[in-house]
């Protein structure tokens, strides 16, 4: 593994592309998309309650927050409400945190970590919340799953969550795509350089040899993905904080995705490419076949972007578990079919 990493260090173009690709796709591209969208939002549209840019820095003239109660059949404004069940209420200029809202109307407000059912929302920012049977307009849904009836949200409200998901998917598909060339080269490249025979003559076991090849592709790919993820999150927050009021990212979905989905997807791609590399006799053939290995990740991406798959924490655990299982199976398969004799004789 160290040898391969040392060889990469000598290949400045390879390092450059490994670092550049996630940054371009995961940082520059989202910024190019988000900045114009943010500026497209109508000026009269509140992205947050006026004057409440950050929860915790409330103006002195605001009432004490309501908490741990049930509010029914009231109309009110300029309130901060925690841990409350709201039924049939009309609220304006309010902040709701960890609430359950039913059959209510909310305008010019922010709802965080809550559930909303059968309500009308107008000029509302919904963060990390679940909603069903909703109606309304000018809704900014961030990391939320909102189901609407009657009227559709505005274009921007519909597009924004999808864009967040798309950016997240970039951080999953990039580490799956990035190592394909390196991993495809790993064994067939040694063969072409005639450096495989002395390597196979060492006491290194098949498992150790494969693990070395796998991690020498995995580590640079995931390293550059983490770097791009960190930069992307910081820059997106920088762009969105003035509108939303506080850092939106990384939320639980993003954190779990980058810690579970990205590495397992990357490993799956590396393993498949290493297997291909141990079976073909030409680097180009390995790279060509290796291109197919990102298909399971592409399927996930299409599912998420089309709305067919909702990336809840549970879903992330399920998909990552499936990917991890495939990774384990691929490793054992790679070890089982790794044949020193075949590599040396059949390729000659």
């Amino acid at each position: 593994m160290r040898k391969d990493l040392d060889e990469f260090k000598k290949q400045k173009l390879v390092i450059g592309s490994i670092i550049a690709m996630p940054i371009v796709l995961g940082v520059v591209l989202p910024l190019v998309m988000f900045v114009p969208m943010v500026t497209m939002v109508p000026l009269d549209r509140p992205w947050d309650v006026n004057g409440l840019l950050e929860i915790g820095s409330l103006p002195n003239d605001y009432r004490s927050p309501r908490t741990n109660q049930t509010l029914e059949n009231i109309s009110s404004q300029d309130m901060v409400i925690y841990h409350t069940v709201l039924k049939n209420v009309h609220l304006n200029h309010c902040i709701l945190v960890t609430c359950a809202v039913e059959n209510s109307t909310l305008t010019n407000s922010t709802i965080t970590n809550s559930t909303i059912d059968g309500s009308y929302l107008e000029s509302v920012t919904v963060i990390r919340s679940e909603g069903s049977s909703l109606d309304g307009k000018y809704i900014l849904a961030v990391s939320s799953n909102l189901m609407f009836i009657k009227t559709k949200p505005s274009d921007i409200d519909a597009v924004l969550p999808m864009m967040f998901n798309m950016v997240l998917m970039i951080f999953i598909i990039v580490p799956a795509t990035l190592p394909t060339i390196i991993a495809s080269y790993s064994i067939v490249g040694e063969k072409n350089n005639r450096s495989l025979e002395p390597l196979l003559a060492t006491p290194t076991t098949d498992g150790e040899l494969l693990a070395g090849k796998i991690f020498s592709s995995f580590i640079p790919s995931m390293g550059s993905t983490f770097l791009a993820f960190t930069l992307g999150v910081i820059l997106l927050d920088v762009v969105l904080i003035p509108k939303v009021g506080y850092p939106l990212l990384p939320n639980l979905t993003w954190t779990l995705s980058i810690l579970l989905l990205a590495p397992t997807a990357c490993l799956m791609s590396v393993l498949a490419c290493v297997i291909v590399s141990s079976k073909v006799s030409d680097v180009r053939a390995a790279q060509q076949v290796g291109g197919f290995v990102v298909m399971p990740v592409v399927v996930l991406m299409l599912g998420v972007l089309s709305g067919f798959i909702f990336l809840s924490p549970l879903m992330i655990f399920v998909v990552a578990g499936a990917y991890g299982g495939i990774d384990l199976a691929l490793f054992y398969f790679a070890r089982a079919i790794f044949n020193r004799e075949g590599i040396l004789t059949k390729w000659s």
Partner: protein
Amino acid sequence: MIICEGLTRTFGSITAIQDFTVEIPDGRIFGLLGPNGAGKTTTMRMLSCLIRPTSGKACIDAYQIGKKEDAQKIRGMIGLLPEVPGLYQTLGAYKNLDYYAQLYGIPKQKREESIKTTLTDLGLWDRRNEPVGGFSKGMKQKIAIARALIHHPRYIFLDEPTASLDPAASKMVREYILELKSRGDTILINTHNLAEAERICDMVALVKNRVVKVGSPKELARGLFARTISITLQTIPTSLLKDISSLEFVSQAQVNGNQLILNVRNPEEDNPRVIAWLMKQGLQVQFVSEEEHSLEDVYLKLIGGGH
């Protein structure tokens, strides 16, 4: 000690090597000589546990070739130089050696010392970080040999160690191999270079998909060719050839200028008798020498010129 008994390897309908039976004692340089496709590399790969024999068996010390549980131990005991050095061209000599030293599990401090000593001996310590791609073929080959020896193996397998090297580089590598022999290592060499084999090998096996003959280069020549004595006389009378041919211990005689060339059965016993007879005839003997046959003569006689 390496013992091979009936080692055979086939690839489909092609038999690369058949019934390879030799014993290689410790501390010797053993040469495998034969034309391209004679099965030399296949034999070396079998002994390196890279490929399995189809039949027959071979042991290195107590470990058996082809036995899965012994393969790792055997690989740890041998150092292999393949036909092509197979160095990592973009890395320096130090990194190339260090990588392999790690694969052999040599502790950091020990491998640093070992690599420093090796590269200093090779005169490459100051150039240790330069990519080896820029080195001469001879230097690359020496680094590749050093790589095969980094873990101080008891058995060293060298496949065509001087192939494609110029005479100076070949000499450099040859001297290095002789230095290894002086350390008591057992060395197996595949080579086409008969002069080189004659110079450095204690024993050789002539192979052409099977072992044709095994022995030291001198033994092989003696076994194949009658021993020829060349005697230089001051003058050779015309009747000498007829007279000397009639002696019972002379099987063949010929004259070449003032040289009398004789085939005798046993030079150690017969030479003094020939000299005494010549002197009794009043002839003055200037030089006596034994005509030696080279390994090339042996090779051409046993293997032939064609492939």
